């Protein structure tokens, strides 16, 4: 079609006509702006949806099928957006500079789109490419949402407070700890939040429900992103990154939905689907089948298996001394044979003690410690030996301990110990039940060398400990169980109101 240039108005009219024609034909030719915008978005989403650090691939090759756990699958679906630079400052870990890599990726996308535009002047539309980038984004988001959802459906990410936590002041926890705990105190709420991530993930797997899933995922992850900023929880960027992918997928249908519901105009959706040959169909089926099998039913199975078989990544699995779980008052405390009277301000004398269901002893003294700040591991912020000061990647290494046939519990300390003030110290213990000896080691990642060897004797509601403490002093401690009932455990609906 030739356009005669009478005046600008004529041109605009003609152009609009052409544009409408083209739209009616099923968007055969795109406008130049649309072509350029697509190239930017294509490169951007591609950069976000493909793992760009080598650790991801070496991790996959190192997988041993016989030892596979939910952690392995999770590390595959929870890969991070590319990390071009690492900013070690506080702002780089918690603040807006944290987004620098998402912004750099966008700049790169603009650059690449510029070159692409220079090279490719013939293509009229990218319906096919658009289709494939959506497929990639859909599955990336879907598996990610499913993985994050499963750690709440089988509540591991947030769990019921330990006895140590129940007896710790509200203010002695960091904000992230409080945020996670407030979810953990309601088991079924945690499960609900899990489904709020899992269901959008499942919807994303089906072409026809993908937009709905993407919209839900975008709303949910946007909320998570804001909450992460509000509580310094540390995964704001990954959440924002999911929200961006969700928004990208939603934008495919949003103009039509707006037209249909707000403008009340009939719409005939233009949904492009490539045609496949028979062999392509066969390949498509099997690729889809295998990936979905691994990341949906097998993932569900592995998370469920771990949850029900003592591999909760926030709960230690070595059982504690039988029938000792509880909160204890310290009735008597002798240091090198000398009685120390009860005083909550004493830096050596224990003012209370707890035993958990698992092998863990905690006690409170008036002495500070460098605390595990519950930051955890994120490859985004840790490169080799760099940036380990602000991040603490070594507190969640349960799987590594398990692989080298060591007790995993010292790698499961982030929940029990992390994010809480140092006055309460947590010790892992190995119990020799024949000789009645506890071999204790501090669980705090910053004080792992603190060890104690204590003999024990158990009687009803009383535990007596004696031996050598972490300062090589001899101690003798009598613990009496408190029959405390917690309002949190009893609940508001219970008839009991006196605690």
């Amino acid at each position, binding site marked *: 079609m030739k356009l005669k240039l009478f005046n600008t108005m004529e041109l605009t009219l003609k152009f609009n006509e052409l544009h409408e024609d083209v739209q009616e034909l099923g968007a055969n030719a795109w406008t130049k702006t649309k072509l350029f915008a697509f190239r930017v978005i294509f490169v951007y989403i591609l950069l976000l949806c493909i793992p760009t650090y080598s650790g991801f691939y070496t991790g996959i090759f190192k997988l041993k099928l016989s030892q596979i756990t939910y952690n392995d699958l999770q590390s595959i679906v929870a890969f991070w957006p590319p990390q071009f630079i690492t900013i070690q400052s506080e702002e780089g870990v918690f603040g807006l500079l944290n987004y620098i890599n998402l912004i750099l990726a966008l700049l790169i996308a603009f650059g690449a789109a510029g070159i692409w535009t220079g090279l490719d002047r013939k293509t009229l539309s990218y319906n096919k490419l658009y289709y494939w980038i959506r497929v990639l984004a859909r599955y990336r988001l879907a598996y990610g949402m499913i993985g994050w959802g499963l750690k709440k459906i089988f509540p591991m990410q947030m769990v019921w407070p330990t006895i140590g936590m129940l007896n710790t002041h509200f203010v*002695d926890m*960091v904000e992230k700890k409080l945020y996670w705990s*407030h979810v953990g105190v309601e088991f079924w*709420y945690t499960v609900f939040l899990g489904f709020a991530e899992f269901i959008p993930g499942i919807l994303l797997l089906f072409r026809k429900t993908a937009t709905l899933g993407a919209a839900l995922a975008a709303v949910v992850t946007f*909320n998570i992103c804001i909450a992460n900023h509000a509580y310094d929880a540390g995964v704001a960027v990954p959440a924002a990154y999911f929200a961006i992918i969700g928004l990208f997928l939603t934008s495919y249908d949003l103009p039509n939905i707006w037209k249909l519901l707000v403008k009340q105009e009939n719409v005939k959706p233009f949904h492009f689907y490539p045609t496949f040959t028979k062999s392509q169909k066969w390949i498509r089926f099997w690729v889809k089948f295998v990936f979905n099998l691994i990341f949906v039913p097998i993932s569900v199975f592995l998370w469920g298996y771990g949850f029900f078989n003592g591999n909760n990544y926030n709960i230690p699995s070595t059982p504690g001394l039988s029938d000792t779980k509880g909160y204890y008052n310290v009735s008597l405390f002798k240091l090198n044979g000398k009685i120390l009277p*009860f005083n909550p301000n004493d830096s050596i004398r224990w003012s209370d003690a707890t035993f958990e269901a698992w092998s863990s002893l905690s006690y409170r003294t008036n002495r500070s410690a460098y605390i595990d700040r519950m930051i955890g591991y994120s490859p985004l912020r840790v490169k080799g030996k760099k940036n380990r000061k602000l991040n603490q990647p070594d507190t969640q290494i349960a799987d590594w301990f398990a692989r080298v046939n060591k007790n995993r519990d010292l790698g499961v300390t982030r929940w029990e110990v992390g994010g809480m003030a140092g006055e309460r110290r947590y010790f892992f213990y190995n119990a020799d039940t024949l000789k009645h000896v506890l071999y204790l080691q501090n669980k705090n990642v910053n004080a792992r060398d603190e060890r104690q060897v204590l003999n024990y004797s158990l009687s009803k509601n009383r535990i007596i400990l004696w031996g050598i403490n972490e300062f090589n002093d001899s101690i003798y401690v009598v613990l009496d169980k408190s029959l405390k009932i917690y309002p949190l455990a009893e609940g*508001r*609906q219970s008839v009991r109101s006196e605690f």
Partner: protein
Amino acid sequence: MSLNGRFLKKGNKVGSINSLLYGVVQDDFSFPIWKSWEQRAFQFFFIFLLLLTLPIDFRFYKLLFSIDWLHINFYSIFQIVRYQTQFLPINYLPKWGIGSFGNWGVAAIVAFILSQAWWHYSSNYLKNYTALNYWLRVILRYRLASLLIVYGFIKFFPIQMPFPSLSNLVTNYGDFYAWKIYFQTLGISPKYESFLGFIEIFAAILLINRKTATFGTGLLIGFLGNVAVANGFYDIGEHVLSTYIVLLSVFLFAYDIPRLYNYFIKDDKETIADRFKPDFSEKKLSRIRLFLKSGFIAFILLYGILTQHSFAIESYKLPKEQGLHGAYGYYDVTNFVLNHDTINYSFSDPHRWVDVVFEKWSTISIRDNRPVIVDKTSGEGYYDKDIDRNYELAGNGGRHYYYYTIDSTRRLLFLQNKNHAKRFDKFTLHYTFINDSTLALDGSLDNSDSAFIVLRKKKLDFLMFEGRRHPVKN
């Protein structure tokens, strides 16, 4: 087939209710015939939802007319808007469980009976409820929006979940009810609370526009976890109201589901848009509309301003009188002498205080070894007197709370237990500041002849304030 003539005789009976109700339907609108199950479902929901929504309860008007418009505050409006019709007085219903929905049961039974009669006595089957459905949706949209506005603003200006008081900060985690933990966790991040409030207000604004209502309800459903579900799981105590919010959201969202279904699932065909566009060309109708719309916007503005005002001057859940000057802090009880006998630190002695908090306001909280009777309310009422402002003690099973007044010339503190079950617990203490961080109290305690107590301020260098950003020794 057009059923226009059956319902709509525009111009014939100008001013009658019928012409108002049906006047909104465009002249050229052709009424599709509703299937009989659609008609019956509509008849039921129409009555059921209106019973739950319309203010048909004398108590509502009692509340309305008790407002002192000269001294109005946000809470009077808040209380009216969130009021739900009680066919059965709420005091006679169980507070928890299915029984707490007793009024819904009544509404459902009445709606069922009336809708049967409606179906039976309506003269012909070829019914179409487009206009009635429109009006029903108008009522529900505004009802939902009004609830979101009143709850949204008290979060946007964070007074619904105030920052936890010092006493609550130094209470053990296990000593709270779950709802209190939920409230306090939101309370420590006023910005996040404001964000959630903003989402509710934003959804309300989408709702008062007919065309964007579906987006508003969709947004609400996306934020369900924060609104309604949390209410259910945490025993927050507003589960009937929050379920009502969900019910309205789902009902309103359902209107567009057939179109969304066609668009996404039957995506090879053209999706037909809703053809109903309310016609407000009739003067009387448009005047009523203008009046109601501007009324609603005035309500939003008034309520917003009142909430902001309340936020600026005081947090209504916390007491407002000044506490003892210079005493704010968390105290260790270093000496405790009762009847001239010193009682050392103890985890079992029933008299010995363990620690004490002086709030910035007229509250002292004491931890000792005696059991605490928990205030089981949500502490959300608006009370004038400080002693009645009970949010700080509600849901806290770890500390005893006392309201106090000061006689600064004689240096006396008059304390009274804030808990309703223990209001008889009153005593008077004489105070002396030994230095900036040490406070001595003496007087009569627990029926003793004399008590002498020395308090020493602790540092407030808590981990929560330090945050996670730097390595912390704590």
